[in-house]
């Protein structure tokens, strides 16, 4: 084994060891690395109970109600739902059927009082005409099913 082979072996071995260490650390901190909990996770009791946390999901269609500057809406992951109340300014991208992340605390009545609401954008980028065409196609598919 030449000296340079040995050095390459050390580099590769070192990287492999570091990679495994990083994987183990990240795995151990898995629960702290999530930015939000889904309603299903909250229902399963995975969310922290004694401190504020974030919930994330979609704003349920037709669930948004506004009184003055308080907004009430339902966050859903299509399996479970959590009603949320928030007083403050909602971000531009906030709308029904879109992703949302809310920070706050879960009350004993199962209602979530948010102190901050962030809109979660998806990875789809398209012009308004294309979006219109997609919506039309969805509508057509729905009518066909009925």
């Amino acid at each position, binding site marked *: 084994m030449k000296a340079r082979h040995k050095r390459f072996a*050390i580099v590769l071995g070192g990287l492999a060891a570091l990679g495994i260490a990083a994987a183990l650390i990240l795995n151990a901190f898995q629960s702290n690395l999530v930015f939000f909990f889904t309603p299903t996770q909250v229902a399963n009791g995975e969310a922290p109970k004694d401190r504020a946390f974030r919930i994330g999901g979609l704003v349920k269609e037709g669930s948004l109600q506004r009184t003055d500057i308080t907004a009430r809406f339902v966050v859903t992951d299509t399996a479970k739902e959590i009603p949320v109340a928030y007083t403050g300014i909602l971000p531009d*991208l906030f709308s029904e059927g879109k992703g949302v992340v809310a920070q706050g605390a879960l009350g004993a009545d199962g209602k979530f009082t948010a102190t901050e609401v962030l809109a979660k954008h998806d990875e789809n980028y398209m012009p308004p005409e294309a979006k219109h065409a997609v919506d039309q196609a969805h509508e057509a598919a729905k009518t066909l099913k009925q």
Partner: protein
Amino acid sequence: MSQPLINWFKFASPASFYPLAGKMWPWFAALATAFAAAGLWISFFVAPTDFQQGEGYRIIFIHVPASWMSMFIYCVMAFWSAIGIGFNTRLSGMMSSALAPTGALFAFLSLWTGALWGKPMWGAWWVWDARLTSELILLFLYLGYIALTAAIDDPRRADKAGAIVSLVGVINVPIIYFSVKWWNTLHQGASVSMTKAPTMAATMLWGMLLMALAFWMYSIAVALYRVRAIILERERHATWVAELLEMQR
């Protein structure tokens, strides 16, 4: 052993790489300018408005290519560092330190443009989610590399220390890339990836890819330019530098 077509080790010597880099960088600079002109034109005048974000989405034409470059340049630095440790070549360390400032620039651009986009779209300049935090760590790794190599006087020792930082830090790159898959993050998933069809309109995609090419060419041009300066500085006592100066006189 048969003679290889190109003797790569010839160009591992700073004395022969210096003129080669000098010949190459203007071409890459010219390509960067051409790609940037085409990319910016598509980004601002051809690409359609987004159905949901309006004009604000146009930040992706800088944000996404900058983020890609910040991750890729770090991988290239780690590659040169491994070569430098393995073959004990002087040029590898110089390449690494020539790339670092450009990488740091792109990491900063990525974070800054992201913050400008995040405020109106998400409702926050900054959140501590896995993607944003790991990209911030990348910026700190670049700055750490630059600071560490600058703090050690002997360039060979500085290169060794820097090589270890860049090799250890390279673990962070896959974490940045996969963070949106592995954990719940506020940052959206990838619109363009190697495993599935892109989820964006074709003209938007073209604008983004042209800008990415422009950033590539810019990075190569600037790194070559910078490595020439580093070579001259480190080899200033070598005879070939004296001869070079003699020729130019």
